[in-house]
């Protein structure tokens, strides 16, 4: 421990700690732009400067370590003026588009200008007019609003190990883009949307389908149904200014009805179904000497990642469709038949924490007779906007249950929303399928928490099971390299594209406090703890679906509706 002085107060700090982290602990808010928690500092933006006694220049607090006896001042006129100048310069060629910007109200740049009291445009550079990249079905880039902080580049490369984008050119021509500036759709981008979540401005956003959905809701010819993913009910509240981790499941269902959806279904139901199919597939692979370790297939960013970077491992990926696509397929088959509606007259919408789901629903394999199983995907953020447009206040509504026949879920399906949840749900059911008995304790602690890599080695009735859980594609890459190198103690691997899983998905509320993801996680665990129905195989509606329609897991109907295949993607620009 060392001692230093901050704004005249004595403060303790760890040796080697950066000034910024000490200041934050002391409750001093220092603005940052390029800084990213958990990554080495890049020191590029200088927004975080402070005065250190004895140093002739201002010191960037994010990248300068504390030392014994250091005297720091965090808000002198010189410091504030320096910060103001940086913001003024950033605004010099900014489009000033706030009123029409998707980031209006939750933009870091806007907030900085506001906090620092900038009231006029001081420097007038030529506005940057640059073409937007609209090529991707999931991600929109508007370079005109980019302040070149580099966060998206670091996220894509250092956390996700995709490196689809980088700085192009330099000086006043510098911009962020893909190789040859060819557009995200022809790059190695996996549509994870993590770059959106770290972007301080409106330069990055999801491809928005709100207008299409509103149009469908107003079309009397159409039956419009909606499904909502497990993690949305624990994050939507944040779009209404409520604390992170508040579960608004029932209110959200009521709100979706207010919007005019004819049926509201729960994707956690098809998560239960996924467990039945995927669990059976695993047992089948183990018994018949199939390709192992089997890898989960519910996260579409991960699927594009393996198709691009590790095509030789595609036989390891479960053939199960993701819960979204399973439910989509059932809505336009079983449900349509039951209701006597032509599938072509059903508009199927899903609310997802995810931008990659927009890409997934547009994959050609996810349509039958040229009718896509899921028509539009809205992110949690988009649902928030849609509800605000329609004047629906989630908080004021009476909770209401989702609709039959896809409305009842077990909490095993619900915890799919967090890293480790699929594995935990799978092991609960595998134990039952193998031994005929439930686990003594359904909570499987080693699989819980936000850690990027978790492992569990257990024995069920003599059957050895090595299970690994990773989230974040950089972590996935490390594990895949081990598998390629011959590691063979694993039978089942769960991989989620986003660090922490869907609760931290690329479509979730952004610019939230760092504890938000943890709070969403806790909320899911609490739902599981209190749930009456905690295993997928005991969901009566799943049992009924098999009895009345599907037959058995891996049966012919399942094969046709619930399973898929993958494509090797030869993206010449995807080396890495």
């Amino acid at each position: 421990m060392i001692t230093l002085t901050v704004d005249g107060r004595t403060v303790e700090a760890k040796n080697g700690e950066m000034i910024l982290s000490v200041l934050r602990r002391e409750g001093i808010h220092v603005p940052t732009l390029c800084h990213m928690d958990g990554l080495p500092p890049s020191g590029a933006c200088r927004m975080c400067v402070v005065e250190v006694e004895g140093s002739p220049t201002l010191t960037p607090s994010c990248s300068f370590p504390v030392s014994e006896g250091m005297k720091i001042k965090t808000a002198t006129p010189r410091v504030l003026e320096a910060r103001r100048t940086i913001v003024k310069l950033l605004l010099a060629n900014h489009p000033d588009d706030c009123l029409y910007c998707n980031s209006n109200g939750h933009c870091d740049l806007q907030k900085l200008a506001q906090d620092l009291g900038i009231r006029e445009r001081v420097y007038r550079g030529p506005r940057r007019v640059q073409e937007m990249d609209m090529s991707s079905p999931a991600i929109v880039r508007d370079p005109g609003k980019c302040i070149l902080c580099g966060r998206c580049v670091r996220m894509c490369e250092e956390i996700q190990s995709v490196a689809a984008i980088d700085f192009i050119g330099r000086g006043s021509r510098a911009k962020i883009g893909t190789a040859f500036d060819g557009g995200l759709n022809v790059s190695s981008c996996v549509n994870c949307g993590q770059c959106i979540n770290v972007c301080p401005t409106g330069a990055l956003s999801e491809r928005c389908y709100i207008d299409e959905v509103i149009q469908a809701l107003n079309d009397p010819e159409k039956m419009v149904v909606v499904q909502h993913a497990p993690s949305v009910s624990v994050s939507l509240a944040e779009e209404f200014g409520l604390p992170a981790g508040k579960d608004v499941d029932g209110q959200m269902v009521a709100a979706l009805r207010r919007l005019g959806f004819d049926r509201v279904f729960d994707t956690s139901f098809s998560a239960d179904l996924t467990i039945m199919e995927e669990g059976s597939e695993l047992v089948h692979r183990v018994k018949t000497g199939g390709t192992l370790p089997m890898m989960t297939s519910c996260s579409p960013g991960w699927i594009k990642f393996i198709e691009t970077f590790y095509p030789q491992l595609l036989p390891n990926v479960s053939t199960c469709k993701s819960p979204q696509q399973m439910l989509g397929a059932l809505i336009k088959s079983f449900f349509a038949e039951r209701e006597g509606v032509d599938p072509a007259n059903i508009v199927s919408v899903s609310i997802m924490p995810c931008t990659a789901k927009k890409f997934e629903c547009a994959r050609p394999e996810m349509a039958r007779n040229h009718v896509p199983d899921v028509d539009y995907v809205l992110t949690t953020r988009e649902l928030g906007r849609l509800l605000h447009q329609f004047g629906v206040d989630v908080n004021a509504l009476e909770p209401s249950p989702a609709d039959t026949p896809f409305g009842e879920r077990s909490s095993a399906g619900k915890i799919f929303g967090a890293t480790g949840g699929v594995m935990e749900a799978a092991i609960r059911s595998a134990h039952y399928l193998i031994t005929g008995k439930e686990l003594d304790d359904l909570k499987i602690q080693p699989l819980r928490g936000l850690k990027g890599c978790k492992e569990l080695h257990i024995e069920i009735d003599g059957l050895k099971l090595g299970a690994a859980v990773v989230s974040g594609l950089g972590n996935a890459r490390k594990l895949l390299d081990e598998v390629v190198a011959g590691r063979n103690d694993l039978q089942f691997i769960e991989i989620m594209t986003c660090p922490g899983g869907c609760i931290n998905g690329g479509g979730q509320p952004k610019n939230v406090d760092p504890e938000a993801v943890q709070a969403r996680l806790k909320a899911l665990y609490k739902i599981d703890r209190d749930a009456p129905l905690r295993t997928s195989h005991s969901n009566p509606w799943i049992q009924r679906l098999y009895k009345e329609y599907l037959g058995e897991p891996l049966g012919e109907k399942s094969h046709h509706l619930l399973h898929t295949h993958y494509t090797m993607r030869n993206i010449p620009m995807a080396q890495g």
Partner: protein
Amino acid sequence: MVTADIDNILNRHSGAGRDHLIPILQEVQEAEGYISPRAVAKIAEFLNLPASKIYGVATFYNQFRFHPKGRFHFMVCRGTACHVKGSQKVLDELTKQLKLEPGQTSRDRLFSLEVVACMGACGLAPVVSVNGEFYAKVTPRKLMEIIQECRQKEVVDV
């Protein structure tokens, strides 16, 4: 043949690390006249670097071009002497007349445009060169004539 060129270059660098990126790019440009997407893909595989990174690094330097040169390759000097003598106007005029930005090549591959730092012909400022031939004390009028000349040559050749 083109592929063979790149392969030869990469072979010469076998076992090389990332620090060889710039020399490799220079040799590829020397051999092919520009850095093509397939060249970047090959270098990416060879150095195990993302293509976006290679493109990013290459665009940081003015020396690399990403389009094949046109039949008539215009270079505009933006050195100090030429600048003083109004080379910015010359460049603006050329950009307008050729409908090209520096680094670009016209769709019909007839013209390409490049900006260089100093051609070492300061006495002739402002200087423009076409396929290595120098034009001294260039004015907008003169530019029109030069371009006209090129187009005529093209017609005669066909």
